[in-house]
């Protein structure tokens, strides 16, 4: 049982493989000063991801050497955490909150609409590589539910129609591409009452 805690089997450090020397040099620089058994691996991921937007594959063997473990364990760890990514994000990534408050207020409808407009499934990138949808966890900004985030901005509370219009502007289909926020608390004019039209 205790063997669990003595974790990473100490193997011979693995030599870095593929990748440009500059990239590897930069990664080494970023993780310089970090060492095994000092709660530093998460720090390494964050530093690398902060710099590149993702963890390049070339970093895996390098980290394995640094943390005296195998590339498989490093890869497995990266794969385990949903916020550590192995591929760069799309040019424009829309983050969709999956939390319960958003769900109860109809976020699934918004998800379906966004997937249709951006032509992209959740956690995937559209065929042209321009748009990405990412599922994110609730961070307790539930007064804006249902919400989406874009470039660090929170947009909500959204109706499905608003989200569609917003996504179309983002895509540039409907006039100029714009990421204009609906200002918080902005009062919108109530629409005129719907009039039924008699049909035969």
């Amino acid at each position, binding site marked *: *049982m*205790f063997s669990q*805690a003595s*974790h*990473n089997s100490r193997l011979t450090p693995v030599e870095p493989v593929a990748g440009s020397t500059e990239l590897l040099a930069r990664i080494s620089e970023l993780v310089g000063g970090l060492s095994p058994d000092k*709660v*530093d*691996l*998460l*720090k390494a*991921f*964050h530093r690398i991801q902060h710099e590149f937007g993702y963890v390049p594959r070339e970093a895996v063997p390098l980290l394995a050497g640094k*943390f005296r*473990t195998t590339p498989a*364990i490093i890869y497995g*760890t990266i794969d*385990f*955490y*949903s*916020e*550590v990514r192995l591929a760069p994000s799309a040019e424009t990534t829309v983050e969709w909150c*999956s*939390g*319960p*408050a958003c*769900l*109860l*207020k*109809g976020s*699934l*409808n*918004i998800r*379906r*609409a966004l997937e*249709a407009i951006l032509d992209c499934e959740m956690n995937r990138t559209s065929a042209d590589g321009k748009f990405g949808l990412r599922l*994110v*966890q*609730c*961070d*307790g*900004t*539930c*007064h*804006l*539910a249902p919400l989406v985030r874009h470039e660090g901005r*929170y947009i909500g509370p959204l*109706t*499905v*129609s608003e989200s*569609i*219009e917003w996504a179309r502007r983002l895509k540039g289909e409907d006039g100029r591409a714009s990421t204009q926020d609906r*200002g*918080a*608390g902005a009062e919108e004019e109530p629409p005129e009452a*719907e*009039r*039924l*039209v*008699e*049909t035969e």
Partner: protein
Amino acid sequence: MTLPRYKEMWQQAEDVWARTARPVRTLIKVGVATCSRVVGAEETLQVLRSEVHERAFDFEVMLTGCPGLCYAEPLVEVVQPNAPGILYQRVTADKVPSLLQAVAEGGIAQDQQALAVMGDQESGGLPALKSIEFMRGQVRRLMANCGVTDPENIDHYIARGGYEGLVRALGMKPVEVIDELKKSGLWGRGGAAFSTGLKWEFLYNAKRKPKYLICNADEGDPGSFVNRNLMESDPQLLVEGMIIGGYATDADKGFIYIRDEYPLPVERMELAVQQARERGLVGENILGSDFSFELEVVRGAGSYVCGDETGLLSSLEDRRGMPKIKPPFPAQAGVFAMPSNINNVESYTNVPLIMRHGAEWWAEMGSEKHKGTKMFSLSGQVQRVGILEVPLGTPTGEVVMRMGGGPPEGRKLKAVQPGGPLSGVIPASDVDIPLEPDPYRERGVLMGSGGLVILDDTNCIVDLCIYFEWFAEDESCGRCTTCFAGTRRMLEILRRISSGRGRLADLELIKLLGNIAQNANCFHGQGAPTAVMSMFRFFEDELLEHVERKRCPAKVCRGLVRYEVRHHSDRLPAAEAICPTNAVVRDNGAYRIDQLKCIKCDACREQAPYAIAVVDEFATA
């Protein structure tokens, strides 16, 4: 030795705090926390600073934390010398110039939404903050500094009694500190409700060194955000709690593990630890005593099971955050196989209060069996989303219906989910049970960490259970078959039911899966079916309606509803325009919905609510 040093520190801090507590010129406080940042509080603060500078007002602008009124943010408090502060709600950057103008003229800004007067006396036609529905009945102990002090200024914390508890603890023996905790009756606030004093004693009695003290700030439960608010509005409280914990358990180092989704709490906790270190409150020979304690903030990377105590340990050990098998318990072999103790943020933050005011004072609040106060966050179908602190044992309905305002106008409460996706739900008929673990446990529900999520009659219980099972499946670490495969089968069955292909045998299968899930190693697997089990217990009729009659009463389950044009209206062109899949089509002047194209996103009905109706897919006339 410790006391004179502290006195000196307190005196300096008091001088700094006096400028805020008894301002000689107009003081403007802006609450900046995660919840207010997303509605533009940072812009408000920036514009306030530049306007005050440009127009040469003799005002002081100060940053503060969040008082928990998320629904009214961004909040700005204006304090005139010798007068109670006035709290304005929804002060976005564009409202700043007129607010400043009114303040300069010495009045209450009429065109702004003044919410209340700080304190307990009404004045100038405004209610006292303590008397507004959201605040009445709250007891703010943990949150005493939230929205009051500057979270980035340690002096504010010290001047308001901070680190007094530490000084008192350092004057006692570690066992005495533990005894005081046991006397208070504090139990873990993370969900398991185990005695904190007892847990600390286990670590104290462990022989090997070094020992570690870990704070679980991986508040992964979606819909819970109480720990976040404490860490970003009063980070020093947690620092002090951890130091006292370190002293009482003879620990050498503390880790505060904060989830990746909380960048601001990470920032503020790091700053708080650094400030405490500069004052000699963290590090070698704390306050001149022979006690030394190191503290480090660790940022997670987005994994829910790292919020399980042993999962967190694995994560700290540079590995996948997979929960370990117990025993050995963390007090025997925790992080790096050394004795460790893990507590929730709220458990640690209660400790300074107990040490400062004594166990008797602390235990005055709360119910017979469960002492103290507890923070809760309200979200979902509730009018006032926010964070509140009430004595344990307060009726749930009081918090949800009165303070939170209940569901939006015209809707009925359906259920309350008390804390996290693994906690289960209670029905509206049980809403008056006290907020403490036992009454919930009797109903097969866990009170959890305090994230109350409210459902109303527009929500479908099957839909919610699908969400919970999806979450449990998605976040399963993959160790136990009953968890990673069990939740997946459960999810498949529930999705089948919601798509109209449910069969009666499914109900037995779900119960079977729920039973075998108990064999999972950690609470994630064991708790995964809780919500589904409470659906069986409290909402069986609704479930049977889905299975037998293929009907979703709330008209949410996608496979059981269909959109149809029922009337002709002048809004149908708008519905046609909004449809993302061109499913609203016009044939010879009449509109209809192409069912093959329709993704059931509800946008067309939003545009033409009278003309387009949601009908049962398998309607029986």
